[in-house]
């Protein structure tokens, strides 16, 4: 149940017919993992906190540095040297005291990813590298938790929503590893992409609209253009591919 203060706080979105009191209560009951509190994570965390997602778990091992500040708007000059999760939690609690913000100052890895996502209803990708994205993708599929992918570079970004076992996953379009290097990013790009991801999370919890499933949304700020591409599940995907046995069963039907 929403308190009277919460009803007032979320009034403008409760007024949206697809949300209402019932939708707002759903958001309050939701638990989200945001993997990374950098550029994408800043906008995702800010807007999900403002929207009234009940519990948010932030995972990041990094500390704030000066070169983060062009895009990671949860972190300010006074935070340089602080743990990003601590800096983020402080701002988010000031924005919305009622949201439970759990912070985990760890590097996501093969050995801890399963534990870190435990109890979450959605995993939001705000990472800055591909290998960790694939770790999250696989874990999300194994645990049947929706995964909200986003990535940026320069003026460009992309978003895709993955419903495990139902829609194409990040690995379905995997073409092999790419070199890891320092990635240039204009600050507004992760703000835009993170907001699209946050919208997807909210839509998912409310059960409304058309998710970006089997749809890769590309944004190019240079041309101010959003372009959509259809993506397909890859039956041979090493994360979500259909096991040989079940393929055989299906072909008998």
């Amino acid at each position, binding site marked *: 149940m929403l308190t009277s203060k919460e009803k007032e706080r979320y009034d403008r979105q409760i007024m949206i017919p697809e949300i209402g009191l019932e939708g707002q209560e759903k958001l309050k009951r939701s638990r989200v993992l945001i993997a990374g509190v950098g550029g994408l994570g800043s906008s995702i965390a800010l807007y999900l906190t403002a929207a009234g997602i009940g519990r948010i778990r932030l995972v990041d091992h990094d500390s704030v540095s000066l070169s983060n500040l062009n895009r990671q708007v949860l972190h300010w000059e006074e935070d340089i040297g602080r743990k990003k999760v601590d800096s983020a939690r402080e701002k988010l609690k000031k924005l919305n005291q009622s949201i439970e913000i759990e912070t985990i100052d760890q590097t996501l890895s093969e050995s801890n990813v399963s534990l870190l996502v435990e109890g979450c209803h959605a995993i939001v990708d*705000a990472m800055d590298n591909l290998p960790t994205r694939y770790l999250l993708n696989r874990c999300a599929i194994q645990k049947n938790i929706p995964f909200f992918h986003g990535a940026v570079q320069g003026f460009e970004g992309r978003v895709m929503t993955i419903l495990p076992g139902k829609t194409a996953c990040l690995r379905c379009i995997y073409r092999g590893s790419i070199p890891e290097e320092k990635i240039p990013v204009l600050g507004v790009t992760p703000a835009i992409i993170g907001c699209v991801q946050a919208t997807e999370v909210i839509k998912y919890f409310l059960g409304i609209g058309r998710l970006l499933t089997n749809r890769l949304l590309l944004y190019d700020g240079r041309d101010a253009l959003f372009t959509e591409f*259809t993506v397909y599940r890859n039956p041979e995907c090493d994360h979500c591919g259909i096991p040989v046995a079940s393929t055989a069963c299906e072909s008998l039907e």
Partner: protein
Amino acid sequence: MPVKVHIHATHRRFTDGQEIVLVEGNTVGECLNHLVQQFPGMEKALFAKKDKLHNVVEVYLNHASAHPNELVKPVKDGDEIHLILMLAGG
């Protein structure tokens, strides 16, 4: 009617700034070879070696993923190919 190849913004320096290049071919691979014939700078941008695209290059045919085995996918006149780059930043 030829096939339209949409060039990624960062590759347009190899195509004299052209966003769209018209090519001929029966497969995605043939179309990309024709693109490279017209703009040789595109070869290094797209291909790691002969008939092997860089892992970072994604190919979409008529706004749908051509993965896997992109290069052998058949195309017909009027089709559109988008060359997109994988992104990894956050």
